[in-house]
């Protein structure tokens, strides 16, 4: 008699195909688990390292209002890191392990954060472009197949929307300001445009894992699809601001109802990924230093908790 029983892996794939969520206690292929741990922890690391370029401007924000907003945004990013690390932990890795991998350079984070933030306009560009790109990437992940990841992304996306708006508002204020301020905004866009396009990752033809990730629904659009969406979304916004997108090949294509645009400098992309970007060393050093200098706080908190426990036990014994 022929059996209609599906293998474990077929059952797993069937659930994904039916758009059902996989939960921590469900069976899953090892490769799915490993890929997810890598993807989610990389995402978490990006939130964490992403605080550094913006943190750079908190003490120099031009007004108390901008300072409060920037502080609130950076605080949100710390929270995003936390949601994501926790989601990765449900797959059986530990927080210490993930941080160790980040600090040793074994784990990657988004290459965008290896670029320096040189002027106040960069705070506008990061919010408007970088958070804008992150949102495009993250919204589809709210429907990703792994339950804890999808639910973390729902929280993240809810909080992201103010990030992009405050960045756009900074740009708008500069663009409506003095000629020097407008020039500062343009100069920011010139430096951030291409690195932001790189955030979507290598070209589809050079992204061999995309097919498997799409199959598992831990990726819902290809890198090139997202990059195209981003350009189509951003060009009208730059036009509104009166800024010029630094791409001589940028042109509206009526037939595809989207923009044609120039090719990213992939040599620069791989160079930054390999650790040779402008700020790779500085970022990693700042992370490691913060972790090491925070060691005594972690130890003291544990010692304090232990002491309190002993005190309460003694109190209970005496009662």
């Amino acid at each position, binding site marked *: 008699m022929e059996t209609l029983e599906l293998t474990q892996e077929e059952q797993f794939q069937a659930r994904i195909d039916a758009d*059902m*969520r996989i*939960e921590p206690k469900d069976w899953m292929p090892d490769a799915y688990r490993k890929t997810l741990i890598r993807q989610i922890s990389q995402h978490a690391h990006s939130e964490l390292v992403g605080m550094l370029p913006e943190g750079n401007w908190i003490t120099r924000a031009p007004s108390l*209002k901008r300072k*409060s*907003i920037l502080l*609130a945004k950076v605080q*949100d990013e710390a929270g995003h890191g936390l949601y994501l690390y926790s989601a990765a932990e449900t797959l059986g890795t530990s927080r210490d392990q993930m941080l160790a991998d980040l600090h040793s350079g074994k784990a990657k984070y988004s290459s965008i954060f290896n670029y320096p933030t040189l002027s106040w306009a960069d705070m506008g560009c990061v919010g408007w472009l970088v958070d*804008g790109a992150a949102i495009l990437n993250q919204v589809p992940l709210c429907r990703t197949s792994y*339950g804890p990841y*999808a*639910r973390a992304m729902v929280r993240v996306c809810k909080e992201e*929307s*103010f990030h*992009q*708006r*405050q960045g*756009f*508002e900074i740009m*708008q204020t500069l663009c409506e300001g003095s000629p020097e301020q407008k020039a500062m905004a343009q100069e920011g866009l010139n430096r951030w445009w291409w690195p932001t396009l790189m955030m979507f990752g290598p070209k589809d033809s050079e992204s061999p894992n995309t097919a498997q990730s799409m199959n598992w629904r831990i990726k819902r659009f290809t890198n090139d699809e997202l990059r195209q969406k981003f350009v189509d*979304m951003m060009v*009208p*916004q730059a036009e*509104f601001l009166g800024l010029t997108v630094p791409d001589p090949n940028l042109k509206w294509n009526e037939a595809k109802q989207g923009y044609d645009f120039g090719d990213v400098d992939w040599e620069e992309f791989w160079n930054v990924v390999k650790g040779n970007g402008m700020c790779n060393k500085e970022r990693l050093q700042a992370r490691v230093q913060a972790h090491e200098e925070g060691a005594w706080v972690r130890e003291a908190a544990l010692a304090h908790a232990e002491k309190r426990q002993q005190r309460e036990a003694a109190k209970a014994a005496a009662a």
Partner: protein
Amino acid sequence: MSQKEWPLWEVFIRSKQGLDHKHVGSLHAADAEMAIQNARDVYTRRLEGVSIWVVESKHVHASNPDDAQAFYEPANDKIYRHPTFYQVPDSIKHM
């Protein structure tokens, strides 16, 4: 014979695949396995759930309601954390 009362358990139900577990109530049971079985009988008789979590109530630590004002007040004046704080021009789409 022991007269010890069965401990209290808090019950969390995932109502539909993909959603969070939500607190639905509590019950007494001798151990976790029994708590899950009882939770199924008490809280999912009408297909209310696809997954159950139980946590012994003594392990739940709650914030103090008396502290609520000082605890949550600092968020009140930070309206800039909300996207509605920012004016987006009408002609700008996707933001």
